[in-house]
């Protein structure tokens, strides 16, 4: 019976492909084939089940036999029975999962097939602000990435993994190591006392000091599971998805914070079933990139002499000095130290371990994520008594409990905690790095003949001593948040009515224990056979200072009453919303934000969409009675593919989805500062002070803080976004495009038309208007050839900014005006190469009080007055729109999978002004300095003539120092191998995967001397190669 049935199925497939009028012949064939089948290869039944990575059964997976072309689907227990032939191959396919095949040898096999998720997932549900929404109903501009795109990046912050993956999100790395503050808080450390903390209103603790994020040009608000906190240290293994919300409608519930856009992080939520455990261990090697090449001492001395003679100064070094530097015959008197090699190792390690457990029954579920990170810096050297290298040790815990108290009542409780211990050498990480860049090779020997540390009056802090003999500083950071959510459905009383209450409490505290000490350095000298050691600096006993460095506390409460109901094809979702967010930083008074909002969304049959929201939002830092404002947003959408004409047209079958959508809204940004509306005085100030009487008794003073601005109000924005979502070829090709135009106005600025006759600094006033507009595209193609799965996803963003209005002084010349230029564009001089001759030097325009010489930079004298001054400065930055993009590719075959991320930026420029011998003229010089102007090198020179220290003509912002910042990187790559399930199953394990991945593997940039992102003198950017194993059981 089975056989016959299978044969029929087999045939019916053919029938479908055949012309209908051949029915009769086919009927005949049917009987013939029945006869033949008995003589064909042996057929038999196999049974099996299909599971996911965690061994959870999957329902509805299509199972196809290759030889029989038979197809069945798994039942609710994930099981299937299928007729196969000997040595058959079964192919499993399921939406959002990779196609997988299994060989069938004989009937005794009980097949367990394991499906893994597609690299790029298209989820039906997307996490948006405070809720989860059907992807098909979203009208705004929302982009999401999920776990597997985050975990392949070996870094200490998940922010590293966001580069190039989300359209509209621009990233720039600014440092290679975190920056911490070790100084204790003082009562005057009130946030934004005199002015808003920055133009984007960013405030509060932020554990990301390494990567700058800008969402459509604004610093986004970060929300982790409904908690407004800038936390970037969550382990990627624990993150379900990261979503960016870019338009007004998607963020309107933030009211006075809705202008900036949102980075929404959703951590992994409990899944019911027997306990599933996933464990990952990985360790990586980090090596520095783009370190400069310092000059050896003899070259340094030679160039320094040249600089001195250029300025008619006395020469600093003699021929004997050169010789001693060159042949290293006098290592103590004429040292030659490469500080980079002395201070930094070639590589350091980063290790991460994470454990995730989830499970539960139908009414209660739980999940726990535990993570540990150990990140070592590149410092060399050690001390037997304490750790001197800079390190980060981080422990995080995230736990969730999700209980259905009744069918209608659900309670969720989340607890997240982070404990982090950072160590750094007593000299301070930043100070040591800075000294490493600035100390010349010939400054002093590391050690003197007697073993003491070398030093001079000018370089009295021996860097190696700062690193290894100066104690240590530890920082402790603690984050805790608890998040409670109650949901109730009132369906029994009024169908569709529900209520939600969410509350979270979040605290952050950091302190440091400074156990730094000091050790003097000595200048060794021999004169007339007499050896002297001149001491610089004093020995300082190891300190033990405990400092509170930051403290913050947040209270959040949200209450929602909602109504979700469908009438025939009319789907309605309406809610009233209230929330209250109170933040307390250090010595600040608490700040309270409140939102009272109502939203309604409607769609007809998933075809026509409309949504609107009103938010009455307030912040108590504004003047009394001027604290609340009304913000609103609305959107419409049209899914063309749901129209009958579309459905009925066979020619359009290849289009699976085509949705047009648009939103518009007025948003706010509460960039208020600390009670700037109030004329106030600070009492008992000790700086400045005025000592009086012959005892010089210091008198504390009272100072007026700032000219009050009683009219201060929130910044606003009008934001428009239009987009299109499309899917083609059986949803294999997806396309999303968005266009936006955001006008930010009432921006806080210091007025330009000001006079200091008023006698006090003007406060920030609501003056400016900027426009940001842009285009974002993302396209994904995902397909398979048999069980060879591949996916490519690309996104690109184009961003143009313009200052529409800023209160500028009445500039004398049109080229001095900033209004109309891109926001924040660099101003400077236009360089016209280096001056080559004495005659050219005499006739070229010059700064007041400066005599030009050959080898100086020549500037364009825009107002033709013979002088180079501010009137000749103009916009020298990039005026074309900024472009940033990323391309992700993934292939997988059998157990192997490979993914890469290319990321890049175009139309970017940056200014890197170089001083020969540093700002003060006594610092290190690098190999590029050798390309300086000399009469011999002339126009081939790549650096102006050398002068000791800053030069009034050459060391100013100009196009000479402007570099093309375009780059693209092989940002990330990963190769993994999953051990066949057959083998792991024997070990009672669900899966074992080994992998290797890397970060910043290759970089191409037009100006390659420095890294295009981290181009100043700071802890270097790093290339990371990482190996790991993941076990699920």
């Amino acid at each position, binding site marked *: 019976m089975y056989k016959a049935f299978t044969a029929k199925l087999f045939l019916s497939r053919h029938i479908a492909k055949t012309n209908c009028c051949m029915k009769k012949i086919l009927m005949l064939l049917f009987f013939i084939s029945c006869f033949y089948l008995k003589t064909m290869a042996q057929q038999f039944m196999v049974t099996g089940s299909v599971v996911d990575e965690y061994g959870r059964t999957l329902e509805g997976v299509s199972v196809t036999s290759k030889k029989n072309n038979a197809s069945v689907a798994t039942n609710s227990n994930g099981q299937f029975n299928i007729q196969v032939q000997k040595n058959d191959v079964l192919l499993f396919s399921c939406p959002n999962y990779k196609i997988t095949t299994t060989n069938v040898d004989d009937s005794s096999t009980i097949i367990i097939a394991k499906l893994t998720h597609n690299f790029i997932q298209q989820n039906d549900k997307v996490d948006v602000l405070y809720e989860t929404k059907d992807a098909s109903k979203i009208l705004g501009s929302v982009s999401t990435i999920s776990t597997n795109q985050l975990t392949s990046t070996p870094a200490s912050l998940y922010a590293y993994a966001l580069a190039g993956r989300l359209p509209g999100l621009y990233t720039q790395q600014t440092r290679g190591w975190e920056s911490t503050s070790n100084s204790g808080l003082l009562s005057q450390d*009130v946030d934004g006392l005199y002015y808003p903390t920055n133009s984007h209103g960013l405030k509060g603790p932020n554990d990301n000091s390494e990567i700058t994020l800008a969402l459509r040009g604004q610093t986004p608000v970060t929300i982790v599971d409904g908690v407004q906190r800038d936390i970037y240290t969550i382990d990627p293994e624990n993150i379900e998805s990261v979503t960016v919300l870019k338009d007004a409608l998607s963020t309107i519930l933030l009211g006075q914070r809705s202008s900036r856009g949102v980075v929404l992080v959703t951590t992994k939520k409990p899944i019911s079933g027997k306990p599933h455990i996933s464990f990952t261990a990985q360790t990586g090697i980090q090596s520095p990139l783009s370190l400069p090449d310092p000059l050896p001492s003899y070259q340094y001395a030679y160039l320094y002499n040249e600089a001195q003679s250029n300025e008619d*100064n*006395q020469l*600093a070094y003699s021929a004997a000095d050169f010789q001693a530097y060159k042949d290293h015959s006098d290592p103590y008197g004429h040292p030659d130290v490469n500080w980079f090699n002395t201070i930094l190792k070639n590589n350091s390690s980063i290790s991460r371990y994470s454990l995730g457990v989830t499970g539960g029954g139908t009414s209660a579920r739980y999940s726990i994520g535990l993570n540990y990170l150990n990140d070592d810096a590149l410092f060399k050297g050690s001390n037997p008594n304490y750790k001197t290298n800079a390190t980060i040790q981080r422990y995080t815990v995230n736990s969730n409990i999700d209980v259905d*108290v*009744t069918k209608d009542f659900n309670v969720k409780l989340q607890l997240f905690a982070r404990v982090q211990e950072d160590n750094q050498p007593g000299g301070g990480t930043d100070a040591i790095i800075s000294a490493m860049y600035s100390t*010349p090779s010939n400054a002093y020997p590391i050690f003197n003949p007697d073993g003491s540390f070398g030093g*001079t*009056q*000018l370089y009295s802090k021996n860097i190696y001593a700062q690193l290894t003999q100066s104690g240590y500083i530890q920082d402790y950071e603690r984050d805790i948040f608890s998040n409670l959510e109650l949901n109730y459905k009132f369906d029994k009383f009024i169908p569709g009515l529900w209520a939600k*209450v969410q*509350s979270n409490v979040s605290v952050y505290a950091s302190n440091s224990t400074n156990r730094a000490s000091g050790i003097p350095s000595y*200048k060794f000298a021999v004169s007339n056979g007499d050896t002297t050691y001149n*001491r610089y600096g004093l020995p300082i006993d190891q300190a033990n200072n405990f400092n509170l460095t930051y403290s913050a506390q947040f209270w959040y*409460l949200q209450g929602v009453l909602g109504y979700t109901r469908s009438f025939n094809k009319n789907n309605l979702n309406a809610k009233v919303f209230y929330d*209250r967010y*109170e933040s307390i930083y250090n010595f600040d*008074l*608490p700040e309270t934000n409140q939102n009272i909002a109502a939203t309604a969304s409607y769609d007809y049959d998933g075809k026509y969409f409309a949504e609107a929201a009103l938010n009455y939002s307030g912040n108590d830092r504004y003047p009394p009675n001027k604290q609340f404002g009304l913000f609103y947003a609305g959107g419409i959408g049209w899914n063309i593919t749901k129209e009958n004409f579309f459905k009925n047209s066979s020619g359009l079958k290849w289009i699976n989805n085509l949705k047009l959508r648009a939103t518009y809204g007025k948003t706010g940004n509460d960039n208020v500062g600390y009670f700037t509306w*109030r*004329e106030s*005085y600070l*009492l008992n*100030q000790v700086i*400045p002070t*005025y*000592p*009086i*009487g*012959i*005892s*010089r008794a*210091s*008198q504390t*003073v*009272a100072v007026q*803080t700032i000219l*009050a601005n009683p009219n201060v109000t929130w910044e606003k924005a009008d934001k428009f976004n239009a987009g299109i979502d499309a899917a083609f070829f059986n949803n294999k090709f997806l396309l999303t495009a968005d266009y936006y135009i955001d006008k930010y106005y009432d921006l806080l600025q210091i007025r330009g038309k*000001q*006079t*200091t*006759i*008023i*006698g006090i600094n003007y*406060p920030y006033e609501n003056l400016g208007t900027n426009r940001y507009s842009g285009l974002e595209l993302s396209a994904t193609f995902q397909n398979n050839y048999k069980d060879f799965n591949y996916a490519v996803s690309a996104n690109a963003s184009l961003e143009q900014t313009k200052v529409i209005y800023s209160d500028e*002084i009445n*500039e*004398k010349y049109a080229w001095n005006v900033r209004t109309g230029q891109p926001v924040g564009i660099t101003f400077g001089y236009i360089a016209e190469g280096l001056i080559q001759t004495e005659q050219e030097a005499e006739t070229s325009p010059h700064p*007041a*009080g*400066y005599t030009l010489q050959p080898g100086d930079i020549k500037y364009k004298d825009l107002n033709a007055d013979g002088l180079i*001054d*501010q009137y000749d400065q103009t916009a020298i930055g990039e005026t074309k729109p900024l472009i940033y993009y990323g391309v992700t590719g993934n292939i997988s075959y059998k157990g192997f999978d490979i993914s890469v991320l290319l990321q890049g930026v175009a139309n970017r420029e940056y200014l890197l002004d170089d001083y020969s011998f540093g700002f*003060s*003229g*006594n610092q290190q010089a690098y190999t590029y300095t050798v390309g300086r102007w000399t009469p011999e090198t002339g126009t081939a020179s790549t650096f102006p003539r050398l002068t*000791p*220290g800053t*030069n*009034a003509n050459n060391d100013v912002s100009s196009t000479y120092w402007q570099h093309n910042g375009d780059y693209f990187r092989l940002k990330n790559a990963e190769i993994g191998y999953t051990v066949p399930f057959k083998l792991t199953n024997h070990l009672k394990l669900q899966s074992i995967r080994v992998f290797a991945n890397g970060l910043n593997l290759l970089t191409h940039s037009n100006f390659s001397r420095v890294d295009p992102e981290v181009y100043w003198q700071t802890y270097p950017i790093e290339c990371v190669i990482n190996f790991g194993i993941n076990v699920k059981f």
Partner: protein
Amino acid sequence: MKKYIAIFVFTAGFLIALSSCRKYEDVPVETVTPDYIWDTKDSNGIYSSQYLFNIYASLIDGQNRIYRDFLDAGSDDAVTSQTSAAPITLLATNGITIFNNPDDAWTRSYAGIREATNFLNNFGVVPLKNTYEKRSWFGEARVLRAYFYWELVKRYGGVPILGDSLLTIDDNIQIPRSSFETCVNYIVNECDRARDSLRDDPVDDANYGRFTKDGALALKAHVLLFAASKLYNGGNVGDSLNGYAAYDANRWKLAADAAKQIMDEGHYVLQDSFPEIFIIQRSPEVIYAKANTLGQQIETSNGPINFSTAPGTGNTSPTQELVDAYGMSNGLPITDPNSGYDPNNPYANRDPRLTYTVFYNGAQWLSTQIQTFNGGINRPGGVTTQTQTGYYMRKFMGNFENATRYEDHYHDWIFFRYAEILLNYAEAENEYSGPADDVFTAVESIRKRARLDPYTLDHNISQDSLRTVIRNERHKEFAFEEQRYWDIRRWKIAGEAYNNDLHGISITKTTGGLLYNVVPVLNSAFDESKMYFYPIPNTEVLSNSKMRQNPGW
């Protein structure tokens, strides 16, 4: 079912209560509103006194004030030792512009004026018990305000006078400059008004550091001396904004009278020892000084380099021009054939003030001799900041000749001292009535204190010769006290002072002894068509349509 609704409602209510019942102050009480400063109940006026001290604290302290340099490192007396382009150098090389002026005083002076006006307008409501004190506080704010105006006028010429108005954020500030004459009259009148209510001299020890009657008078004498000087009085380079229309000898008389008044009152005398003036707790010579707490900043910033136990960064390099200004201890200038000056032993038998003002090669310091010959310990060459001229600044430092390390000492910044009053008087009286006995007496008293031997002058010299002596005496006496910089301007001799390069000494140690070579160190310059007045900051001209720029800018 109802039970669970109850739980839901109860929990929700609890959370709301938890979150909303927390009440804090509406505004931060540590930042107080004006009515706390002008407290109508505080008979001690604690907060208003703090506010008054804030005005005092707004006064500048000349020690290394311009990006680590003394203002006089922008005159012909010194250059900076900093190897990089130091802002001070702009002042001596025609480098200041309408955009950039390292000695810009516009913003800070108007800030001080606002603070003083705020005090004068509001302090009346504070019921200070001691009426003598209350009157004095008013006077102090008034004379401070006059001083801030003077800071402006000597740099820019006539400036907008705001009187008692306190400008607000809503004012569209379009105020024209007042004429130089109006400004001088305003300042002088304010000094007179303040003097009426200020404390009598000498002030008690506890109030040392406050302006007194003679302080106001000293400011008046100083201002009048400037106003009578050539730059404004007869040598006017611009229009009424920059000086008087015509010369009037009577202006010298006003200046002389103001100085004489202080001399006649006799509250102040010359300190017996010249170097002590700057380092002791309270010199009988000091009329007004901005008090400083104990410290060694002078030494660490300007002391010779390479003393390992007494580190100094040697920021200030006095010029050969300054060194040459000091004559011999017999009172004769080094150019005088009878002076006994030996170019091969140039620092022997010089005016003792040279040793107290400048470190030269061989000078005693920290129990050793200064070595500023090329390659010497204190001028080693290499990248280290070190003297550019072969000299370091010695003035204002403690007496560490025979010490091994620096110790804390007082280093008040002196605004007015009695020596200036004497020389102001001498200069004005010599201009008004020519060489007279009391002019000689005044100058000789300075020379006597300086231990010149003989200190007396030939009483038969001409007015011009006496003028030269007085100017030289000012040069030597007030080096680095922010006098020379302004003197060469008001005398209108800045052209010759700057336009011949500035020099240092290059000393080569040979087996035969030391070879002294005068070498140029700075290609200084002065554009006489415009540099006598600073440019008004460009933003002021562009945002205030009534603001007129100074000539030449």
